[in-house]
Structures are given as C-alpha cells and as structure tokens.
C-alpha cells in the first residue's frame, strides 16, 4: 500500500510538468522551412485520402495556401477530434485546420482565428426505414458518434440517446451500415456531402431531423500566437479568403452545397471594403 501511494505521488508530480513552448512560431516555421498542420484524413470532402493515398480536400487547399504564403513546405499530420487540441498545445503541429468547431470552452485552450472560415450544425444520418421525425425520437436508442465532437455532450444531455462513440468517422459509418445503431450523429455538412456523393451504399439513408446548434469552424493556433505575428497573418488570410470568394470557389470545387454563412460573410466583407 505504501508503495502504491508513492507511485500515485510520482504520477501526480508528472502533472506539474507543463510543456515549454517557444514564443515566436512564425520565425520558427520560416527557420525550419516547414509548416506543420493538423488535418483530417477521414472527413470527406474537407480532408480525406484520395485513391493514391494522398491527403486532399478543401482544408488541405487552405493549408497549402498558408504554406505557400510563408514560402515553406507543408507537412500534414492527420489528427482526430480527440487529440488535435493536445497536439497543438504540445507543439507537434503549428495550426489546426481540421473541422474545428469554435466553442467557448475551446477558446480557453487555444486561439481561434476570426473570421471563421466555415459553419456547420448538428444532425443525424439515419436509414429511411428508421422513421425518425424529431430529435426526441433518439431517446434511449443507440446512436453512433465520433470521439471528441463538441455536440456529443449536448445531445446526450438534452435528448439522452445511448451514444456509441468511435475513434474515427469511417468506424462510426461502418457501425451504422452494420445496423449497430439507429443513427449517426454528425455535422450536417458532412452528412449532406455523404448523401450527395451518389454512393449506392447511402441510397436508403436520409438526414431526417432539423439541424441544430449552428457552430462556426475556425483555424486553431496556440493561445500565445493568436495576437502574435502568426495569428495576424492568418486573420488577414481568412479575411481575404472570404472577400475574394475563394472559399465559395473551393466549395464548388469539392462539390459542397453553397453554405449561407459563406455567402453572407462574403457579402459583408466585400461591402465593408
């Protein structure tokens, strides 16, 4: 027992060790000649693997643009929702471009670049035969989801489904296909693009509910970079992406329906200049 206590104390001591981060990220990136970005590789069409195994997608295009602007090489690190914030804080990546929802809780942890480059909301993907009509229908039923998504907690607290949460998106979708759950809880943007993809696998599926809890997406940087040179550069780029219509063009390129948020922001920023 004594030994166990000592062990517990030793573990507690490791808690106190906080990673030390260098201050000027921008200078470091230029010195290394590499920009390390955390991206998704299972989130079509924002970041996914093409048949040759390369990571491509809308967010990858944005990441490439940041790297080009800095005149450095782009290195992509695949992240999942559950580990991306930790990776950023530990300095393994310089920024997150991985469908990151901009929430108040997360703002305490990392810096969110404004204006946000995208907005999604929460919905479910379900077989038509399930006959779901309203959110309350999920009560007590098995619903697949993905780890680390911000809406898991909210949905389970309000509608109390029995969430079955998987490490990655394909696992969750496979479980849904295998009838392991009645619906798959996710961003409506991804659901729409999955259904519109024309894959016969999803022919009998639908997005039956009204999207809820609209959520902006943001590029994430470390807190001390937010007001530094690196953060400022990203903010300017984000404004430019909206103003020039680049984001709208990328949506068409990747076959996503034009989202009201982007159209609106584009108008607003154009009018303001």
């Amino acid at each position, binding site marked *: 027992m004594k030994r166990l206590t000592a062990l517990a104390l030793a573990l507690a001591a490791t808690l106190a060790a906080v990673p030390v981060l260098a201050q000027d990220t921008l200078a470091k990136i230029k010195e290394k000649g590499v920009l390390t970005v955390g991206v998704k590789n299972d989130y079509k069409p924002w970041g996914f693997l093409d048949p040759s195994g390369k990571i491509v997608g809308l967010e990858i295009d944005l990441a490439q643009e940041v790297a080009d602007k800095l005149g450095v090489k782009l290195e992509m690190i695949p992240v999942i929702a559950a580990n991306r914030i930790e990776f950023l804080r530990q300095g393994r990546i310089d920024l997150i471009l991985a469908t990151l929802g901009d929430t108040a*809780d997360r703002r305490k942890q990392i810096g969110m670049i404004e204006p946000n480059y995208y907005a999604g909301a929460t919905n479910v993907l379900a077989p038509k035969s399930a006959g779901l009509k309203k959110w309350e229908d999920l009560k007590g039923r098995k619903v697949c989801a993905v780890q680390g998504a*911000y809406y898991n907690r909210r949905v389970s607290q309000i509608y109390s489904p029995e969430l079955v949460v998987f490490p990655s998106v394909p696992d969750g979708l496979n479980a849904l296909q295998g009838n392991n759950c009645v619906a798959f809880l996710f961003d409506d943007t991804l659901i729409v693009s999955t259904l519109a993809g024309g894959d016969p696998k999803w022919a009998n599926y639908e997005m039956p509910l009204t999207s809820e809890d609209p959520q902006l997406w943001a590029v994430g940087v470390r807190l001390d970079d937010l007001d530094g040179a690196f953060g400022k550069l990203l903010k300017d780029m984000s404004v430019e992406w909206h103003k020039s219509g680049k984001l709208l063009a990328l949506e068409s390129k990747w076959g996503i329906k034009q989202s009201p948020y982007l159209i609106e922001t584009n108008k607003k920023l154009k009018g303001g200049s």
Partner: protein
Amino acid sequence: MIAAFFERLNDVHGLNFSIFYDAFDRSRFLTGLWTTTYICVVSILASLAIGLLGVWIAGSNSRFGRLVVRIYVQFFRNTPPLVQLSFFYFAVGGLLPTVSDGFGGQSPLVSGTGWAIIAFSLFAGAFNVEIFRAGIEAVPETMVEAAESLGYTRFQLWRQIVLPLAFRICLPALNNNLVNLVKTTTLAYAIGVPELLYAASQIWSEMFNVREMMNVLLVTYVLLVAVLVWVMHRWEKAMRIPGYMP
C-alpha cells in the same frame, strides 16, 4: 467536501479532475469502471472454462477434437486481439439476425460489450489452453500410472489428481495471462464499448484535461490489477500443499 476540494484545485492550480466534481463526468467514469470490471470478470471466468474444456479435448482420444483445439489455439493466439475484435464486431456482427429494439426498429443480436466479452474470452482462452497443458504435462507420469493402477477412470483421474496438481504448477503463468486480459479490455474502446479508456477519452476531449485523466486511468488500472493479483495470491496460498514442491 471532496467536490469542493477538486473544484478549488481546478480554479487555483489548473488541475482539472472533473470526475470528482462534475456529476455528468463522474457518472460516465463510473459507468466505464463498471463496464471494464464486468468485461474482466465474465471474460476471466469464460476464458478459464474454455481453457479447461480445450485441454480436456486436446488430451482426449478423438483425433478430430484434437485438431479443432489445435486450430483454435493457433488462430486466436497468433492474431492480434484488436483485429479479432473488429472482425467480430464489423464483419460477423453484420451477418447475424437482428432483434427488435423495442422502438419499432432493429438492433443487432450481440451488442458491442457482448462482442468484447466473446473476443477476449476466446483470446485469453487460447492462451489458457496452452498454460493448462504445460501444467498437466508437468504432473509426474508415475503419479498418473499409480492412479490408473488403482482403477481411476480418466475423468476421476483428472478431477482428483491431475488438475489439482496442474493448477498449482501453472498458477504463475495463469496470473500473467489474466493480468494481460485485464489490460487487453481497453481495446474494446475501438468498437465503442463504454469502458474506462472510452470514458476517459470522452471526458478529456471535452474538458481538455488529458494529463489529469491519463494519470487517473493509470492509477485505476494499477488498482484493478492489484485486486486481481491479490485474489489470485489468496487462492494460491489457500491451495498450498505443505511439503509439495513441483
């Protein structure tokens, strides 16, 4: 009282042990602890039963039976448990008939937790077959012959002489395997079974307290394994035969 202490710890030192003051997180963590314990207990018992059955068939006169056991052991011992688990859940689970879920929909016959128990029992059972075999082969041949000459049937011989001795011989190896089984249960996280690792990762992806939860996890598993080892140790002591040293 405890909750207040941990809330202060979070406010003052930024050490966020949310499971001690946030009711939602606590219930998730306790559910995880219960699920892990449940999977462990059922899998341990089932794997022991499989081990005994397997070693009984492996020592029988049926050639077909011996072959089946050999194939089973090779298959489950030589493939990664995570692959077995995914295979059961994603491949086999989809082929089984579904049952009504009480909401007018259909749900699979075996839940994720069910598959986890099945996969881990078979995985650990394969090792147990080999462990028991080692123990049985270490029982002195002379003792078996002596019993046979007294007219023991094969079953009596096993029950009263071979197994009691074999058990004592193979307990250290069995302990090892069962401790391994407890640690293997974390793999159930990959198929969405709400066990400890799953609960912890849910909590840290929302609360951003990875470092704290990792420590809680490590300590929890140390304690879980300590309980198992203590039980096995008590059992070993209870079974000691004074003067018998294999």
